[in-house]
């Protein structure tokens, strides 16, 4: 009996955590997304009120509808900013991978006494506030900024480049900010790789390059997937970076949400956008992971 209870508790705790920190907030947002705007505190109606008992709950449920979701389909703004977010997040993920992989690879190949220091260097930027690091990029990228001064001094360009307030600046900001999230899982995948596999490949006639493609890369795929998710998912909803570095024409779902929430004061529509974002993002990822798990099981 006791053992059963213990097992139940052990499984129960993470589920309780998931319930408290994911399902409950999601339920609240979902509820707001089915409400209507009101000039009140809070700025939507109906609000949950248990004083009226069962009748109150029935009236409450009766007042909920999907109007806001219908609204979202009627304006292409939401769809186009979602697509634009997808594009920006995707390109940033690929760039992070291209920069992060060689970094992680050379870290994993470095003499073992260096590795803690190298790891430290990757983590070091986190000691400064994220916001301040993004602000610092304004100073670097602006027309009279460090980058332009350097380029003009060296003679690469004659006129300063307009980088700040463009999508390019957003890419730079996202890649810079999320690069450690790509490097760390890649490093841990590459570091624990068995070196004798490479030796075997070379013994069997592989060149160093083809050994990399045939052995190292496939074995580091879990790291690539984990790193890509860690960059891609937060990048889609990113608000700070496009707001500070992006231009007036940079469309991202995070900015659209901000406008919905703050300028339109429309919490219900803002919530509907958030729910859709979650569904469009989480569902494919869950399916992808399921498929990965199945593939792994099949291998075994």
């Amino acid at each position: 009996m006791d053992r059963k209870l213990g097992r139940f508790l052990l499984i129960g705790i993470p589920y309780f955590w998931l319930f408290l920190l994911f399902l409950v907030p999601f339920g609240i947002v979902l509820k707001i997304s089915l409400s209507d705007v009101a000039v009140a505190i809070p700025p939507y109606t109906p609000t949950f009120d248990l004083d009226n008992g069962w009748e109150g709950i029935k009236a409450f449920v009766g007042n909920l509808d999907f109007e806001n979701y219908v609204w979202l389909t009627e304006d292409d703004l939401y769809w186009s900013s979602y697509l634009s977010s997808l594009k920006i997040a995707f390109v940033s993920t690929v760039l992070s991978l291209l920069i992060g992989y060689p970094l992680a690879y050379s870290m994993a190949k470095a003499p073992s006494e260096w590795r803690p220091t190298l790891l430290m260097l990757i983590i070091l930027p986190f000691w400064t506030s994220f916001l301040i690091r993004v602000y610092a990029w304004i100073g670097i990228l602006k027309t009279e900024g460090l980058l332009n001064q350097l380029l003009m001094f060296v003679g690469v360009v004659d006129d300063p480049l307009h980088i700040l307030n463009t999508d390019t600046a957003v890419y730079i900001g996202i890649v810079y900010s999320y690069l450690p999230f790509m490097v760390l899982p890649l490093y841990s995948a590459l570091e624990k790789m068995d070196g004798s596999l490479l030796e075997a490949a070379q013994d069997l006639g592989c060149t160093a390059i083809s050994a990399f493609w045939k052995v190292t890369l496939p074995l580091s795929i879990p790291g690539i997937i984990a790193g890509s998710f860690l960059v891609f998912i937060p990048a889609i909803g990113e608000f700070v970076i496009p707001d500070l570095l992006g231009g007036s024409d940079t469309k991202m779902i995070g900015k659209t949400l901000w406008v919905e929430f703050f300028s339109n004061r429309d919490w219900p529509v803002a919530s509907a956008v958030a729910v859709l974002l979650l569904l469009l993002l989480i569902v494919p990822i869950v399916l992808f992971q399921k498929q990965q798990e199945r593939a792994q099981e099949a291998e075994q």
Partner: protein
Amino acid sequence: MKKIGNSLLTSVLALGLAVSTQASAEEVVNVFNWSDYIDEEILAEFEAETGIKVVYDVFDSNEVLETKLLAGSSGYDVVVPTGTFLARQIQAGVFQKLDQSKLTNNGNLWNVVSERVDKYDPGNAYSVNYMWGTTGIGYNVDMIKERLGVERIDSWDVVFDPEKLAKLKDCGVYLLDAPTELIPAALNYLGKNPDSRDKGDLKAAEDLLMSIRPFVRKFHSSEYISTLANGDICLTVGWSGDILQARDRAAEADNGVTVDYAIPKEGALMWFDQMAVPADASNADNAHKFINYIMRDDVMAKASNYVYYANGNLASQKLLAEDVIGDPAIYPDSGTMERLYTIMPYDPKTQRVITRLWTKVKSGS
């Protein structure tokens, strides 16, 4: 209405941190005001005089303040929304009526301002004016002369005539990132009611704004103070006091940049920042004391002399510095005053149309 727009720092702070308002033995008043909007000596003097500690916090957009107020339990005792926002917030039940018996400096107020505020806050029951100003054109005198051949700007033509604005593209044009400022200005320029909600009128305003969009470098509501003062841009549509701050910074830096502010002859938007007390303020009594202190003629004069905005306090006018009361950009003459217009808050449906229109204009497509 100093700095609307997506101010990030503030919104992060505003949503992330709840202001602690422990009712300790110490008397406090929690004030939430616009950034760069007070002479901090005033706060120290208030503390010394009353023994009430001022916890002073700043925002730079009405939207951030409003979202915080509408979420409830903001923890603030005195907040300073702009008239149009105030009206809607009163309707939402955000504020408590001021106890006029505690505001003994009431006699100092200027009826010219309180009569105009009446349309936002009937009877001035919920609020007292802190500062007011206009939304006009700030420009770099030399750059404009070089490109347009005029000594000074006196018309919205320079902004809304694409041919004229095109000549300024290379030296940099900023617009406020605030649809509630630019759309009325566009409507007014077209000879329509600046407060119009008519679909056709709004479409006309949108077309006008789209026609000048290619020549605008950036939409931003506070950056123009520094860019104008440094000579990085040559024209901006902005708030009076901010542009005058840019003018003074340029003069102090002695960097060869001369900035001037114009209230165009076609008229300009007049706005009012109002002190009000949230209904759930935990130190309402101290809030009244604070507001009453600010209403003192010498205190209000000190505030205006510092931030270069006009106030709604008649008694303070004799104590204002000459470069404040004597500056028609701050205290316009009566002829200009008549051309200033005010607007009312948009209903949610119109707000949606306005926001969408603005997104379109900003993204340029």
